[in-house]
């Protein structure tokens, strides 16, 4: 029964895996050697070695402009009286999240053997994020006009995994290539904090909070100790008697196909990250409780005169904190599916000037509650073997997007730098986006063998 519950819980919170958007311009940037990540059917002309490619994706469905509002010579917050509720709350979603994904390539190696192309690589990937429901902002802005609020859906998560992948691509003919990559996933650490129930009831007589939250922290490296009452002390870690084993293990595959029906026209389709990972949550906890605040209790004149009201409110606060304290529960395992990634692309090289190409890409990331999709038109210029550049524009879940990529070679070294971003700008002198945004930065260096 416990296992069944675990699986259901896992399915309910699958939005915590690897969901990085791959480098969408891979098909268009001729000198890019790690295109097989976008579509495992992509082959390079020769072998290569790559060390240290950095890919960073950040995604948020709300921006700083939801919380900051320019007013004449001033910038005010969303809770300023000059900002209407419609202006503030209208810019937010029911579930407001930000998430980030870092993919650091330790090493990649590719080699050709006849019509086949092999790749082998090892990566470290980290994912983090958090989400806050709209109701919390609504209460702060408007108050408690409604009696009952559902504040569940708050969550924070993060995980770190290593990935070892082997890819194989075979060119059946000049028209069709197919490829697949098998990935062995090794979980290092995973943390989920999820508020599954948070019912707040506001009446004149009482505030009632009914809270249920789960904390799942893997780690075979250390154990969070519990106090005498069974509550986890997050600051009390012990590594005694712990297995020095990974916290998770899993498999995933990428599948892809490249079709060249006409000379100069290339069609690409791939599905990435089909699979899952089994996490061992060695530190699991649950907080559950109901707190009712009815104001101060039997306050006396002395309490008022001596300032003891503060102490009474402190008691209430302690009650609430006690209700959300995390009690240790039995360790458990969970299979978590990995949000998948679907990529489509079409490239057409100009017959009059093959170095110039146009095309389109489409991308969908299936990620419960955080799905993302976009399409782009692409213009690529690959005039020399040592220089390629692309530019693109399109629209995504959060509005217009743009991107550019560059690949330049010096001798056998190739530098790739790419940026994909949305419009809307940032807060000056910072990297904080003003609008909902999806941003991917890619920087890498390869060596042609």
């Amino acid at each position: 029964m416990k296992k069944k519950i675990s699986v259901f819980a896992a399915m309910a919170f699958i939005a915590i895996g690897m969901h990085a958007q791959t480098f969408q311009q891979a098909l268009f940037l001729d000198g890019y050697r790690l295109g097989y990540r976008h579509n495992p059917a992509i082959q390079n002309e020769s072998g290569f070695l790559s060390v240290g490619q950095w890919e960073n994706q950040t995604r948020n469905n709300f921006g700083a402009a939801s919380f900051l509002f320019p007013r004449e010579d001033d910038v005010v917050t969303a809770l300023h009286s000059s900002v209407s509720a419609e202006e503030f709350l209208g810019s937010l979603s029911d579930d407001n999240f930000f998430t980030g994904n870092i993919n650091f390539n330790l090493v990649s190696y590719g080699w050709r053997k006849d019509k086949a192309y092999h790749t082998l690589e090892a990566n470290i990937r980290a994912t983090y994020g958090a989400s806050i429901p709209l109701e919390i902002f609504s209460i702060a802005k408007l108050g408690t006009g409604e009696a009952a609020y559902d504040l569940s859906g708050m969550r924070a998560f993060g995980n770190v995994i290593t990935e070892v992948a082997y890819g194989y691509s075979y060119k059946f003919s000049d028209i069709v290539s197919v490829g697949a990559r098998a990935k062995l996933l090794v979980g290092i650490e995973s943390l989920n904090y999820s508020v599954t129930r948070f019912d707040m009831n506001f009446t004149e007589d009482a505030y009632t909070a009914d809270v249920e939250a789960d904390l799942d922290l893997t780690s075979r490296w250390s154990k969070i100790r519990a106090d005498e009452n069974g509550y986890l002390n997050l600051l009390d870690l012990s590594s005694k008697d712990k297995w020095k084993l990974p916290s998770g293990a899993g498999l995933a595959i990428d599948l892809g196909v490249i079709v060249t029906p006409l000379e100069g026209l290339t069609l690409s389709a791939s599905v990435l990250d089909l699979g899952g990972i089994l996490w061992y949550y060695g530190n699991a906890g649950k907080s559950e409780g109901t707190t009712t605040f009815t104001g101060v209790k039997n306050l006396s004149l002395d309490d008022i005169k001596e300032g003891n009201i503060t102490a009474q409110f402190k008691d209430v606060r302690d009650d609430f904190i006690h209700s959300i304290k995390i009690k240790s529960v039995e360790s458990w395992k969970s299979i978590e599916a990995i949000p998948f990634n679907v990529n489509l692309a079409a490239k057409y090289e100009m017959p009059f000037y093959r170095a110039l190409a146009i095309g389109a890409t489409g991308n969908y990331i299936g990620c419960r509650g955080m799905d993302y999709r976009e399409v782009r038109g692409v213009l690529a210029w690959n005039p020399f073997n040592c220089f390629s550049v692309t530019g693109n524009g399109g629209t995504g879940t959060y509005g217009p997007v743009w991107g550019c990529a560059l690949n330049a070679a010096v001798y056998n070294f190739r530098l790739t730098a790419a940026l994909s971003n949305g419009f809307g700008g940032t807060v000056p002198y910072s990297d904080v986006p003003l609008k909902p945004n999806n941003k991917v930065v890619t920087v890498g260096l390869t060596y042609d063998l």
Partner: protein
Amino acid sequence: MRFKSIVFAAIAILCAACSNMEYDISEGINKELTLFEDEISVPLGSIGPLTIGSTLNGVSKLEGLGGMVAEYIKQDADGNLILDASGDIFRINIYELEKRLGDVSTAQTWNSGFQMGYIGGMASLLGYINLKAVNQKIVVSASNPLYVNVPASCDASATCMGAGGITSTRIEGLDNFTMPGGSTKELLTIALPEEITDPVAYISLSNLTLDLPANPLSKVSDKNGNLFFAFSYYFSCGIAVGENFSIPVSDLSINSADVAIGKYRLKKCQFTVDLESTIPLSVNISNIRAVKPPKEDGSQEVDENIVITGDVTVPGGSEEKPASTTITLSVEALEGTIPDISGMLVDLNLSAGSDLGDVALCADQGLYVKSSSARITGGITIPQE
């Protein structure tokens, strides 16, 4: 040079494209917040019980007129509130007495005539504020400076004055008595009949005679001690309210309500209080007005922009029959927001609880705020500082 200019211009354009200078927060953000713009209800909780006893016990000392009255009010062993007074009915120095006797070579009977001791203190004022005296008790004591017993006699009576007119009650037991030598002795304690609810105004001793020995001065027990023949009283009574009790007070100033809420820019607050009262007094507060902070010359005036409305009537109750009521009080600014309030002016009427009859006041009676809440409409502004 031209190339550099082009590069700088390109960077500037790129930065401008990426950043929106309207959102420049490098100089800081205006942190003023207005929370709960529509409405918020806040449970304030329960208060009390605020008993008369706890108010009088000195910890939660009342101030002003209330405190002055409280100084005189005491509690007996049963927690009943009492007022008391003590004083002399008659006293005469032994030297003065010998002078009046003239020839003291033989024993003689001395008649002091009519003597009267007025009851002072707050007890005598009960009638003036329509309170009733219950459980009236008089203790008469006598003091004899001689070392020999002195027989004495008198007609003693207690005279009550109040709504019932003037009534005298004879104090039995002082027809013939002995004043023991060299001591002060409680001669008797009498309790007035329950039906007498007007407080005792004075105690009189008529035809007070002392059977004195010859040469009384030579029989003084301690010439450095007591040299007086004296009759004194101790009077105590409980306090009760009856159906005629009523104290209307206009423009009662509550200066301690100094509330600096202006900076929070509240527009409207409504307070709801569920009360239970065991005090046999009905309290009605009406015509509540907010007073502006004092001007430079110290004068204050009512803030006409603030409207305070509500039905603030707390019915009288008793411990056997507590009175429950819900009070609502609304504070609203006609224009703008509620500024600082320096004090309040109210009209107050204290009256006896209906259908309760005469109920003595005791320490356990009080008010209990069973629950209370505030509803704030229009937001609460937290200033930037």
